């Protein structure tokens, strides 16, 4: 799992590009600089729109989403889309022509800012493509899920986290591009510079909308962590333990097998009505292997509780172990219930059954001292000693990770198996031997569809297995959170899935004003602060004073703008001379600052321009 690319890799790469600064200060902008900055920013804006679209799901989900009282993030999403559309509208007219007399389109951009924005857009496009691997298109054009991550990507939580991440990038990109637009230029088109700057201003409107929503309903750090950890949708290769692997390798084997099983389990229900692999063979092997896997988790958690580094969380681990034991009992009860039924086809082994057997083997190799452990009987197999399980500080997190993924996967498996049986029963594929039916029922065949009470009993056993496995997962999640194991992301993942399906209400956000503190957006320097920087002033008191004056100036402009006539407002917006102040006003993210642009649309301004 750790080898797979994740969305956060590309967001980080984009942010790194945009955070880079020039080695030398460029004082003059050329026509080519502006041209390439326009192209790069348009690419960035386009990719951002695509990223927002990825987190919107199907039409049904959208209907459900908007049918509710529109919350802060629903409004922010709408405003963000509008702001990006407007930014793109200002940029598009300037990419059609040549960059300027005597400048080749194919020549490399001279502006470092344009290069950085283009590179950031490319990184973000790669991140967008990674998210798209979780979806495919049906023949009728509708989007369908291709992985267990897909519903989470379309959830409200992840959608909000996406806006938060994009807001940070938009702020940085606008700062870079406005620098190109506002630098003195003897040759560049005035209109192109003006529209480039206006596009930046719309990006700040976008950032302001996100900031406002973030203040009202902060996106939990765990949800942003979840978005960043969405992996590329690939199936990990099947691994078979060879014996003698160290604990980290065994943990990797457990996690990758759990991932394969989770995917295989997703295919159980859609195919249950017809698949020849829906057999009693698959059902019994799956239930048996899940029982053994739960037992192995119980052993692992007991051993962890005996480890010296786990002294602080010993009681928690013992409670986890007890929960895993209850899951084992529930799976065993499901296996018992299968003793009395059969299916219309037999012999085939489903991929889910094969992967469950693999998971039992991997967890067994981790839980037992024998490096060649198998479920088969043999000389007594003692559990792995605590010192062997946790021989390095990182092993504790690795083992908890492995157990957490396993319990979570068993929960998915129990739910999928239950649904599979329900669908198969509806298709009359779950049978019982005729001789086990009451004598009054005369059926001239050896098997008959299982009576409803058989099915109900079977389904209730699987419901119990799902509930017990889910409880074990929750208990292990508490430990994972305590020791900051990477598997914490599973908790956010489950919550996102539940919210996406509307099964549960969104968890109440607990406002955490410090959630954003570690990676707060860099403030855009105001006009006075910029002048001090250009003069080479480094005195902190002077810079702080300039910041205060810039802030007061921004407030003054916002107050004044509310009283301006539309004509005067338009003139101010279009003035490059006023642009440094206007940019600073917008980048202050005062909730009223967006009104400075709002009456304006690209169309309106062009119409006005066309008038004499």
């Amino acid at each position, binding site marked *: 799992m750790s080898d797979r690319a994740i969305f956060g890799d590309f967001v980080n790469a984009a942010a790194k590009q945009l955070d880079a600064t020039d080695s030398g200060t460029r004082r003059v902008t050329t026509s080519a600089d502006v041209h390439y900055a326009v192209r790069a920013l348009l690419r960035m804006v386009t990719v951002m729109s695509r990223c927002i679209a990825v987190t919107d799901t199907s039409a049904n989900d959208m209907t459900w989403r908007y049918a509710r009282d529109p919350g802060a993030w629903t409004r922010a999403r709408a405003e963000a889309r509008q702001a990006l559309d407007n930014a793109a509208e200002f940029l598009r007219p300037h990419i059609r022509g040549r960059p300027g007399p005597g400048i080749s389109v194919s020549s490399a951009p001279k502006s470092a800012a344009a290069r950085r924005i283009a590179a950031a857009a490319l990184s973000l496009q790669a991140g967008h493509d990674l998210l798209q691997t979780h979806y495919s298109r049906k023949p009728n054009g509708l989007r369908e899920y291709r992985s267990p991550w897909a519903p989470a990507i379309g959830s409200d939580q992840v959608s909000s986290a996406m806006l938060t991440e994009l807001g940070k990038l938009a702020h940085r990109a606008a700062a870079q591009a406005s620098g190109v637009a506002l630098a003195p230029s003897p040759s560049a088109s005035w209109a192109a510079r003006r529209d480039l700057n206006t596009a930046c201003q719309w990006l700040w409107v976008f950032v302001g909308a996100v900031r406002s929503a973030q203040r009202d309903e902060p996106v939990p750090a765990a949800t942003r962590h979840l978005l960043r950890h969405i992996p590329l949708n690939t199936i990990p290769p099947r691994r078979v333990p060879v014996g003698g692997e160290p604990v980290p390798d065994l943990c990797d084997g457990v996690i990758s097998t759990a991932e394969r099983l989770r995917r295989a389990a997703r295919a159980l229900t859609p195919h249950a009505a017809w698949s020849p692999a829906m057999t*009693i*063979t698959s059902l*019994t*092997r799956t*239930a*048996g*292997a899940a*029982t*053994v896997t739960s*037992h*192995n988790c*119980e052993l692992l958690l007991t051993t962890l509780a005996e480890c010296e580094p786990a002294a602080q969380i010993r009681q928690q681990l013992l409670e986890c172990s007890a929960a895993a*034991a209850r899951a*084992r009992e529930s799976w*065993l009860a499901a*296996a*018992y219930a*299968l*003793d009395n039924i*059969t299916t219309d086809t*037999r*012999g085939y082994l489903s991929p889910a059954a094969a992967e469950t057997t693999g998971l*039992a083997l991997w967890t*067994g190799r981790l839980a037992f001292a024998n490096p060649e452990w198998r*479920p*088969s*009987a*043999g*000389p*007594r*197999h*003692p559990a792995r000693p605590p010192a062997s399980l946790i021989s390095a500080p990182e092993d504790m997190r690795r083992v908890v990770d492995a157990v957490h993924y396993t319990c979570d996967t068993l929960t998915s498996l129990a739910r999928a198996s239950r649904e599979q049986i329900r669908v198969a029963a509806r298709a009359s594929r779950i049978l019982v*031997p005729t*001789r086990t039916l009451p004598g009054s029922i005369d059926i001239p065949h*050896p*098997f008959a569809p299982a009576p409803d009470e058989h099915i109900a009993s079977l389904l209730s056993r699987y419901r119990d297995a799902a509930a017990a496995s889910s409880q074990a997962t929750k208990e292990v999640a508490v430990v994972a959170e305590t020791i900051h194991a990477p598997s914490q992301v599973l908790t956010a993942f489950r919550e996102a899935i539940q919210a996406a399906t509307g099964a549960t209400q969104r968890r109440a956000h607990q406002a955490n004003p410090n959630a954003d503190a570690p990676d707060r957006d860099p403030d855009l320097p105001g006009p006075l602060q910029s002048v001090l920087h250009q003069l080479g002033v480094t005195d902190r008191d002077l810079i702080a004073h300039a910041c205060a004056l810039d802030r007061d100036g921004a407030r003054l402009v916002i107050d004044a703008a509310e009283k301006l006539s539309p004509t005067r407002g338009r003139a101010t917006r279009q003035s490059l001379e006023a642009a440094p102040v206007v940019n600073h006003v917008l980048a202050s993210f005062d909730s009223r600052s967006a009104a400075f642009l709002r009456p304006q649309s690209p169309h309106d301004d062009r119409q006005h321009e066309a008038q004499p």
Partner: protein
Amino acid sequence: MSQICELHHRLGRAGNLPSVLAVAYEAFDGILLAIRSRENPAADLFAAFVMAAASAADGRDAITRAPSLPLSGLSHAVITRQAGEPEPGIRVLAGSVAELARLLAGQLAQAEQAAALAGDQNACAQAATCAREIHTLLAGATDE
């Protein structure tokens, strides 16, 4: 324990295909019952027993698909202990079941060869595979 021994004895005497199938059905049923009553997570044969039970249930199911299985005379195994008979140790039980499974696999393989109907051949082959799995899972139980 005595039932497992009796099934072993009856299986050895079964001559024609219907009787082999009937006793094989009872043998798988008996193995399943014997194992289910002793699945104890505290014992170190827990994993072997759980997986062997899955194979036993599957083997019994395979036999029921054989066209030549005489449905009318089919009986379920009943595991009882005679008065005064001590409960066998879990490893002793596993060893006995493994032996019965080994004999079962051999008899079913022979029955597959002798069967004329494809349905009987398939059923015997699949059930023999299940019996071999049970033997593999439990055969090492008496190695200490």
